[in-house]
């Protein structure tokens, strides 16, 4: 059942992404609408998959790479749908859905066996901490898509090459605004995610902060976005500079999410370690 839900979601995302890509090439409104409903349908299936998995496992399905990648993908699509509806820009999908699709494809490569969770981690904090973290990741992913669109559109306007892609991309102002909204939404989410993480760490491991690689990199990510938000609010960093920082921030975020697993030093957050159940 879960497998069917997972692959149906993957298929809908795939078709929707193809539609969004086609929309990039041919500005038929029907393509945009079709893509929008496909992705919305995919999201509902994805939500159903996640909930089913939650009940099967007895905890938030976020404890191995298969689950986490899928969860990340789902939050991206959820946040994206909200922004797409708010701003009425289908073309945002052409830049965001491929990312979610890639995450799903990556997720499908990992074992979907439900891991046995050590008792220390079985707590409501698992749900709160991880959901908040992934929601913030997702808004930054949308900001990343908007930033790429901004840079493309900005280049067209500066170089005075006003082709068909230029016609289709929204105004710089709107793209910058999406970026800003994502930041003002994502940053508090990330902050609270880190705080709840610290509280949970205290209850589970007895210390708020242990400079675990994941914690360190989360802090770096947080600092980048804090700098961007600060720059925006005080000196009016906007446009290109904000776009570049959003892109840099997102790559660091991706590293925080995935790269930490690859670091030689063992992270408490590493998915293998999580399952190994050997803590200090």
């Amino acid at each position, binding site marked *: 059942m879960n497998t069917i839900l997972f692959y149906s979601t993957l298929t809908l995302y795939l078709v929707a992404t193809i539609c969004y890509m086609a929309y990039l090439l041919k500005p038929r409104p029907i393509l945009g609408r079709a893509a929008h409903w496909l992705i919305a349908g995919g999201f509902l299936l994805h939500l159903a998959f996640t909930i089913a998995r939650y009940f099967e496992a007895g905890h938030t399905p976020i404890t191995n790479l298969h689950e986490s990648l899928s969860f990340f993908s789902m939050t991206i699509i959820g946040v994206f749908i909200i922004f797409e509806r708010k701003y009425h820009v289908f073309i945002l999908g052409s830049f965001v859905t491929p990312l979610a699709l890639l995450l799903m494809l990556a997720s499908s490569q990992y074992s979907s066996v439900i891991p046995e969770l050590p008792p220390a981690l079985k707590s409501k904090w698992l749900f709160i901490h991880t959901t908040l973290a992934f929601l913030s990741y997702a808004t930054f992913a949308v900001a990343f898509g908007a930033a790429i669109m901004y840079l493309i*559109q900005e280049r067209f*306007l*500066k170089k*005075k090459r*006003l082709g068909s892609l*230029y*016609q289709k991309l*929204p*105004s*710089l*102002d*709107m793209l910058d*605004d999406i970026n800003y909204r994502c930041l003002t939404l994502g940053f508090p989410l990330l902050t609270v995610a880190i705080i709840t993480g610290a509280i949970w760490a205290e209850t589970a491991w007895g210390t708020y902060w242990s400079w675990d690689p994941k914690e360190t990199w989360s802090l770096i990510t947080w600092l980048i976005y804090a700098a961007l938000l600060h720059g925006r609010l005080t*000196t*009016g*960093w*906007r*446009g*290109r*500079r904000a776009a570049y920082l959003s892109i840099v921030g997102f790559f660091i975020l991706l590293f925080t999410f995935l790269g930490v697993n690859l670091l030689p030093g063992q992270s408490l957050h590493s998915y293998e370690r999580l399952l190994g159940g050997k803590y200090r």
Partner: protein
Amino acid sequence: MNIVVVGLSHKTASVEIREKVAFAPTRMEKPLTELVALPDIAEAVIVSTCNRVEIYASTHDAAGGMARLKRFLADFHGISLDSLEPHLYSHHGEAAIRHVFRVASSLDSMVVGEPQILGQIKTAYGYAAEFRSSGIILNRFLHKAFSVAKRVRTETGIASSAVSVSFAAVELAKKIFGDLSDKTVMLIGAGEMCELAAKHFLNSGVRGVMVSNRTFERAEKLAEEFDGRAVRFEDLFDHLHKADIILSSTGAPHFIIGARDVEAVIRRRKLKPMFFIDIAVPRDIDPKVNDVDNVYLYDMDDLQGVVASNLQQRAEEAKKAEGIVDQEIGQFFKWLSSLEVTPTIVALRSRFEEVRQAELTRTLAGWKELPPDGQKRLEALTQAIVNKILHTPTSHLKQTGQGGRTDLYVDALRQLFELETEQPQEEDLGELEE
């Protein structure tokens, strides 16, 4: 029934000629009633815009009808036909249909794709409807033309990009700022282009206008005209940061705004974007300004480049539009020819014959003790009834066919008896209310 078109346009006549034959929109009753009073002319619509004057009419005699329309145009405006004739074009049948579809779709316009012409034809049709000079043929014809134009507009990108320098500037501003309603435009210097562009920006809803000029009185006058604010030229850089869009067209022989100036201004604005439009030749603004972050500078050449590429794009879209027109002509022409008398009589007869045969077969099938010559007699009887019934309408149709309004009868007959014709859909009748 035939559709004919007689007229002239920017392609065949200079403005001196066009204005001589133009019809005043407030006085359409007289020409329209005179037109339909002419022999041969059954219905008429007059389209009179600054770029074209055309009469669309339905007639039984295409050649005679066209000649009459030409004569009418000359006589009505009191000019000699000889001097007018070389500028006139006339079409009938399929060519006339194609012409009107193309005009309505803005394929024949001076600026291909400009949207006004459709509205102008709708207005012209409105007059014809008001003064009852339009009937079944032109009604359907023009509605068809409107729906063709609508298809062209939605299915091709023919009208999707700006083709004048000032519109191109407005579109660029929209791509930079999105909503213009909280933006301020500053005019530096005064020139026709500059004023025109400022008007376009005002029409697009910008919040305010500032005007700066070397002669302050001139600035004040212009500011008043735009309901804006005058700024002394010496104080320009104290006010520049308040402007989002800057239109410059001074007569200065050198740059009046340099990259350094703009860097200072944009810092003062907390990096809020600025859009400089330099329509002066020689240029007013140093091209290096375009390299400043969040600043966009377009000069006259850039804007003309935008227009040229848009025009090229329109030309490509126009090809698609011609294809749509071709498709629709066939459909409409089918309906038009269905209004001919002879095929209608044939169709009517065969419909009656169908009924007669069906009823006869049914009766004969259940009739066991039919006398030997019974079948023959019944055949003769039913045949006679059908012939008698059809005689009067048929001869009426044939008579009116010599010059009356057969199309009305034919259309009514076809609808009453559901004789097969491909009817154009009525989906666009509501369009006029737009």
